[in-house]
């Protein structure tokens, strides 16, 4: 499990995060929602150790995250950013193999190659092995990177949880793959993985999330089970939007309809 304790972060005089504490459990798909500039991505960056001059602490498996350490967690924790700046001609397989880098020293083993293939298969990218990464579309690139982070934490370690952090992973995907992505994320979460997704779409969150963290202006507005957190009152308050909810008759999942801004 992953615990964030009293985390605050400032840039200059600007308070980005203000005393955030939260507990993320394995087995649940956790989503972080909030308006632009609310601190969602910053929180994810602190958890993933990209930002390390914050106050407070982050604990993986109850062990304090060493702010300077990058090596040891990389075998059990993978992070997918909003976009990657890779601009060299590499094959898709070479990119996915990078996910296995923490696991081998100089040459990939047979197992590493096998895992790469399986990860690509899971993303329905089997036929892309030899393709030049630069010739792919934005959505295809994102799927390759998802396969890469999946390959990174493919195996379940014996006595530890796995951690998967996704920062707005579905922005460049079509409708089909948005759902495909979140389904896979949910599956992974259920296999004893702490999975945190930063996302904007309230309705997708209602459909997939088990646990939601609602952030606004660097503070936690609400935290808990999806239906308790994503309520008309909360959404109206943080987004300044008037909205109403309709209930889907078959799945009973609520659906938000935005009416106007307040």
């Amino acid at each position: 499990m992953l615990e964030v304790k009293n985390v605050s972060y400032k840039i200059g005089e600007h308070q980005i995060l203000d005393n955030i504490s939260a507990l993320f459990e394995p087995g649940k798909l956790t989503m972080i929602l909030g308006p632009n500039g609310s601190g969602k991505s910053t929180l994810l960056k602190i958890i993933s150790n990209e930002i390390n001059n914050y106050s407070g602490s982050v604990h993986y498996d109850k062990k304090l995250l060493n702010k300077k350490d990058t090596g040891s967690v990389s075998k059990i924790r993978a992070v997918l950013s909003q976009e990657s700046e890779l601009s060299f001609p590499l094959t898709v397989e070479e990119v996915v193999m990078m996910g296995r880098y923490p696991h081998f020293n100089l040459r990939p083993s047979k197992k590493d190659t096998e895992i790469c293939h399986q990860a690509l298969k899971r993303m329905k990218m089997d036929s892309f092995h030899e393709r030049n990464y630069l010739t792919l579309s934005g959505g295809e690139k994102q799927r390759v990177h998802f396969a890469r982070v999946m390959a990174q934490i493919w195996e379940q370690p014996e006595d530890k949880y796995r951690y998967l952090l996704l920062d707005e992973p579905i922005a460049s995907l079509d409708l089909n793959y948005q759902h495909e992505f979140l389904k896979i994320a949910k599956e992974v979460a259920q296999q004893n993985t702490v999975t945190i997704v930063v996302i904007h779409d309230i309705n997708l969150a209602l459909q997939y999330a088990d646990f939601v963290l609602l952030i606004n202006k660097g503070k936690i507005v609400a935290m808990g089970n999806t239906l308790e957190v994503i309520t008309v009152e909360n959404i109206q308050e943080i987004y300044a939007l008037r909205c109403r909810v309709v209930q889907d008759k078959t799945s009973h999942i609520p659906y938000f309809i935005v009416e106007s801004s307040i």
Partner: protein
Amino acid sequence: MFLAIRTGAVHITYREIFISLAKAFGFHPDAKIEPIQEGVFMQIRLPRVLLCVVIGAGLSVSGALMQALFRNPIVEPGLIGTSSGAAFGAALIFVVGKSFFAQYSQLLGNMILPLSACVFSFIATMLVYRLSSSYGKVTVTIMILVGVAINAIAVSCTGFLSYIARDPQARSITFWSLGTFSGANWNSVCLVYAVVIPCIFLALRYSKALNALLLGESEASYLGINTEKLKTRIIILNTLIVAVGTSAVGVIGFVGLIVPHLLRMIKGSDNRFLIIGSALMGAVIMNVADMVSRIVIAPAELPIGIVTSFVGAPVFIWILRRQKGIHSKGGYYA
């Protein structure tokens, strides 16, 4: 390589090469050989070709390293100040005079030239890197502009030095800032081999981490790579290679750019392949360029820097144009 040994103002046959080598290794073949051929081969041609091999390899590898570090395939030691910094460091020594240091110790006198080249090329490279990156992201446009600026400063300082220098010093600065292998001797061969070869092997060890760095600094750190450490080490490695090479033969441009690029076109950007390939291909290309520089206006010779830049710059422009076509939405150079 053999062809390179044979060609030149004094022609040497394969047979003569063989005999000279045999003699050098302690055999005493009965075959006769003209002393001039043997002398030219052992004292001039062989060290020159050996130096060519290692410097071609070194410059190409350092080109590949820099391209991975800056995450951009148009970076080259000459573009980001490494070479011109080294040139300035060396020119400084030319003018201040080796003898000034040699009076303190013999060793210092011999080492001061590469040392000074190292220091200044390191400063120049670091300056370009620091000035062109903000929040860990290197902006390419700024990097190239900063590179131009730093190069200009280094070149103008070198120019100033050659202006105040006495005539023979000035001439050696000029000749040297264009690059030439004509000064090759066994001393420089030993020094350059001792530094560059270990550096290339070290570079190979970092190839996996460099691959990860292509994804971006934060992605590399998610893969467990200490990016700050890696960057400093790569810059140090690169500076060592380029500065020692430059101190021996002067500034040779574009090799470090073109060799890795050609390899990328053949077989992708995996740095493990790229570094080995660059070493081999760089050695060959440098030899060819050196041969050309010897043949074109024989019996005199051109500085090799002229040859590589004359051929290299158009290729560079061609690469830019071509990439612009393929990735019109930014791609490589956005």
